[in-house]
């Protein structure tokens, strides 16, 4: 059966070239970079090269790159590391309602440990308002953390402006750029970014490796204690195959990025337009233009996301949903609720995220099968345009 992968925001296949390189570092160049013999020295050099490749993707210096085990660890390190290192300066952190759980649950932890966190609301397009950031700043604010691009609806935030505001106020600025790095151009200097989180598996690198960019001069505490690796900021034997894989993936991502973005955006727009034409009563979630090249997110009124998902899966299409049933939690996506969607509408959301390997045919196939699935599910649904679709929906996170 045809299998189409439309879930690139969840993870991506590792590039063949990247995987081949990693093989070499598993079986032949397998040394520990801390060792001073030849097995160790040869891989230490490769780790340094990978650091340079990644730095170049972000317009950073290689000594500003710290490898971690992924985006979640980098988010934890950024927030906890910065908060505890700056405890004496203040205890207030500003973030948003639509962050990934790696940020939100780290903030929960910080709130239990003496910090105060403000969760900014977003508008109906999931966009943070600069005005709200400004208003939230107090003389105790030490950190602002706003994600670069949202993982569910793809909205790209006004990072440069928030970064500039933070810089002016002397507040550190972190951005969780897990969705953006490798898929969208980022320049940490131009964007006034102090700390940036990234994860390799979102741009055709391996799982289990990520990095935190820390601008030179910004001091943070270590979170994982042990050996002196990563200049004592992140202990643990370096995941060398992961690191060289991340470096290579960064290099590949940089090649023809503009072209790749243009191609994927065209597919995305074709899918959006096609669905709007073919399916009544749907709502595009996320910003109409300020969105990630591959990101499509619709709410299909009167139907539920998981059943959409399962039907698509039976047709060979892999997608994702913001419904509670998908995540095993009680509430649907906190992002969709923060955007003002009702629970019912949020439950009917479907995320299709396109990537490098997708083609026009994939989009056309989806445009054939998805409207049919929606129609069938609607025919079994007790809900319709005439039934009431409303509930009260305060953002469950902003209730903090």
């Amino acid at each position: 059966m045809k299998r189409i992968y439309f879930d690139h925001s969840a993870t991506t296949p590792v590039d063949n070239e990247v995987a081949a390189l990693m093989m070499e570092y598993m079986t032949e160049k397998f040394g520990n970079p801390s060792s001073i013999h030849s097995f160790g020295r040869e891989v230490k050099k490769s780790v340094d090269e990978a650091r340079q490749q990644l730095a170049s993707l972000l317009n950073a210096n290689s000594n500003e790159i710290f490898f971690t085990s992924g985006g979640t660890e980098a988010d934890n390190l950024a927030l906890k590391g910065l908060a505890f290192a700056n405890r004496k300066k203040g205890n207030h952190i500003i973030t948003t309602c639509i962050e990934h759980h790696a940020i939100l649950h780290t903030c929960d932890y910080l709130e239990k440990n003496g910090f105060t966190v403000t969760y900014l609301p977003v508008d109906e397009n999931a966009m943070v308002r600069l005005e709200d950031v400004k208003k939230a700043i107090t003389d105790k604010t030490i950190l602002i953390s706003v994600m670069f691009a949202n993982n569910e609806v793809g909205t790209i935030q006004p990072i440069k402006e928030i970064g500039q505001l933070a810089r002016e106020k002397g507040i550190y600025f972190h951005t969780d750029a897990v969705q953006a790095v490798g898929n969208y151009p980022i320049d940490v200097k131009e964007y006034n970014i102090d700390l940036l989180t990234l994860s390799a598996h979102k741009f055709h690198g391996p799982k289990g490796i990520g990095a935190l960019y820390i601008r030179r001069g910004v001091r943070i505490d270590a979170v994982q204690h042990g050996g002196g690796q990563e200049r004592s900021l992140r202990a643990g034997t370096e995941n060398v195959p992961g690191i060289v894989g991340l470096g290579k993936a960064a290099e590949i991502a940089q090649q023809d990025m503009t072209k790749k973005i243009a191609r994927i955006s065209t597919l995305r727009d074709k899918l959006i337009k096609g669905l709007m034409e073919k399916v009544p009563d749907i709502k595009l979630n996320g910003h109409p233009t300020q969105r990630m090249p591959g990101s499509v997110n619709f709410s299909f009124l009167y139907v539920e996301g998981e059943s959409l998902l399962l039907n698509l899966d039976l047709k060979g299409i892999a997608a994702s949903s913001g419904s509670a049933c998908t995540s095993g939690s009680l509430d649907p996506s906190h992002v969709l609720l923060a955007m003002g969607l009702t629970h019912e509408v949020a439950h009917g959301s479907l995320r299709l995220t396109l990537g490098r390997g997708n083609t026009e045919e994939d989009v056309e196939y989806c445009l054939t099968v998805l409207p049919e699935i929606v129609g069938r599910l609607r025919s079994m649904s007790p809900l319709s345009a005439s039934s009431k679709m409303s509930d009260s929906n305060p953002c469950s996170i902003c209730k903090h």
Partner: protein
Amino acid sequence: MYTEKVMDHFTNPRNVGEISDANGVGEVGNAKCGDIMRIYLKVEDDIIKDVKFKTFGCGAAIATSSMVTELVMGKTLDEALEISNQAVAEALGGLPPAKMHCSNLAADALHEAIKDYIEKKGK
């Protein structure tokens, strides 16, 4: 994730639809969970002659709705009242734990429909 039986009822749900002259209708579920189930009954001489459902919900919700209609078709009301959500899940070969409390409400909808029938009849 789901058993074969669940997937069978999900992909080929039995007795989907409405009964225009239903004499008992029950609805349960809530928007928080993302599941709303409505059961239509046509009862004659305390026997369920026809049953149909409409469901907004996940795979488990649709499959349990379908299964409950199969289980009660032709049964007496007393027999139907004995069917529990648990029994429906078992008839499907089990459900994932996360789905047990939320999407497994079809028997409740059935009981609501029977209650509705009895109330209407009583009037």
